[in-house]
């Protein structure tokens, strides 16, 4: 049993509830994957526990690869909870909403580039998963992350970024995605092959044709 004192909910994510808490005098965030009551209970349990474990692992591995992530303090696989460092700042999503500084997307590209250099695929590098804390950009939410050398897998990460920018942030899409790629290319040697793969992915099947 993890002992922390809950101070309040800071966010309701897609799958998890995020609580601010006090743990031994530190401000921490508790990410608690709540049951999706509408699923087969076996499936629900499997998804939550796997993702919680994966996330704790990869938050750590990403940090070793030079990508700023919250420090993981505790992991509770029974309740699907992770206790991690609280990152104070603003999310990329809101920063782009108010058109602040598109340059920050270049840094986002650098983080994903560093991640891919270490053969880690983030799985959900959307703008709600980056927090700008002071002048440091931090990457969160590794629940869908996994290790892979495959360029196709890495290309999907770029596609996810592109989709988020072209749909929700369409005002900054073109320049923003170009900036992102600049950062990506500058930090990742294999970026050329991944970008080829992205183009191939987008020109074939699903992206070209919709029956």
């Amino acid at each position, binding site marked *: 049993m993890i002992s922390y004192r809950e101070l309040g909910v800071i966010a*309701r*994510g*897609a*799958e998890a509830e995020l609580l601010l808490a006090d743990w031994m005098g530190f401000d921490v965030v508790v990410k608690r994957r709540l049951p*999706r*009551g*509408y*699923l*087969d209970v*076996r*499936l*629900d349990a*499997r*998804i939550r526990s796997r993702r919680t474990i994966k996330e704790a692992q990869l938050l750590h591995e990403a940090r070793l690869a030079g990508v700023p992530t919250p420090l993981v303090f505790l992991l509770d696989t029974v309740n699907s909870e992770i206790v991690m460092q609280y990152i104070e700042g603003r999310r990329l*999503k809101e920063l782009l909403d108010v058109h602040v500084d598109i340059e920050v997307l270049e840094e986002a590209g650098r983080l994903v580039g560093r991640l891919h250099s270490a053969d880690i695929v983030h*799985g*959900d*590098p*959307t703008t*709600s998963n980056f927090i700008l804390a002071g002048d440091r950009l931090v990457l969160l939410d590794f629940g*869908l992350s996994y290790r892979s050398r495959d360029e196709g897998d890495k290309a*999907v*990460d770029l*596609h*996810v970024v592109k*989709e*988020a920018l*072209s*749909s*929700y942030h*369409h005002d900054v899409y073109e320049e923003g995605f170009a900036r992102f790629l600049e950062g990506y290319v500058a930090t990742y040697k294999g970026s050329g092959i991944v970008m080829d793969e992205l183009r191939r*992915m987008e020109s074939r*099947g*699903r*992206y*070209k*044709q*919709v*029956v």
Partner: protein
Amino acid sequence: MSTCLGIESTAHTFGAAVVSEDGRIMSDVKDIYVPPTGSGIHPREAARHHVSEAPRVLRKALVEAGISIDDLSCISYSAGPGLGPALRVGAVAARAISSYYGKPLVPVHHAIGHLELGRLLTGARRPVALLISGGHTTVLIPKRRRWRVFGETLDITVGQLIDQFGRHLGLSSPSGPKIEGLASTGSTLLELPYTVRGNDLSFSGMLTAAKRLLARGHRQEDVAYSIQETAFAMLCEVAERALAFTGYHELMVVGGVAANSRLRAMLKAAARRQDAKLELVPPRFSGDCGAQIAWPGIMYYKGGVRVRPVDANVIQRWRLDVVDVPWIE
């Protein structure tokens, strides 16, 4: 009051409907091609079906609407994406009526039709939309004159997953209702790949794995149950992700797969979990129909969109996020 005759012939369905500019569906008639048991849709056979049913369906649509062709303001047709031979039947009919009676002709993107009819019928204003039909598994948001793709399948659609699994079992397509029946008597959850990447999905690995489970002797009922539970859980997850990200409060679901009652129940709970309301199109209009073409048809017509009959082509491959929808804010 302007009115539009819309003609749909993308795949299995030949449909015709008359809709007025205030959104009243004055008629909606259709006839659905059913391929032989165990086989998928054959484009030329579908086209043959459409050719033979078109006169009756069109006449009935006009009679039920109580309108003569002369009194229509325009004709719209489903210009794609879809099966070439099937699409051409609708386009030819629309072209003929348009030139013979001198009526303006308006092309409509089939999927935009699903989405816009969905908004008309549900009253949803700014929803996250889940389009789940034979040809699409796509999460979208309406923003600045476009339906913008927020996420979609990276390979086959959930409709294709179900149909191809059904065909593997020797069921006639579309096999959704039969798979739903089978699944309702299954109870063992077998492990299948659950693949969500951001807001994107992948189902092809699940199809392969499901066939393998059958080959290993698992009961059809249990495999069908596991496919539904796993695939629908993935759909609900991307819907939840889009709702959480955008903060929107409506989840609109359109397309034929929404007829599945297990999926509807799951989506309802998923929407509630994100403080959103589930908006479902009445079953009668969730599958392909003329009204989905007639309604955008009249909206485009009022915005001045026309094609000359000689230019009224069909586009088999046509992404929906390149289509201008001027009335979306």
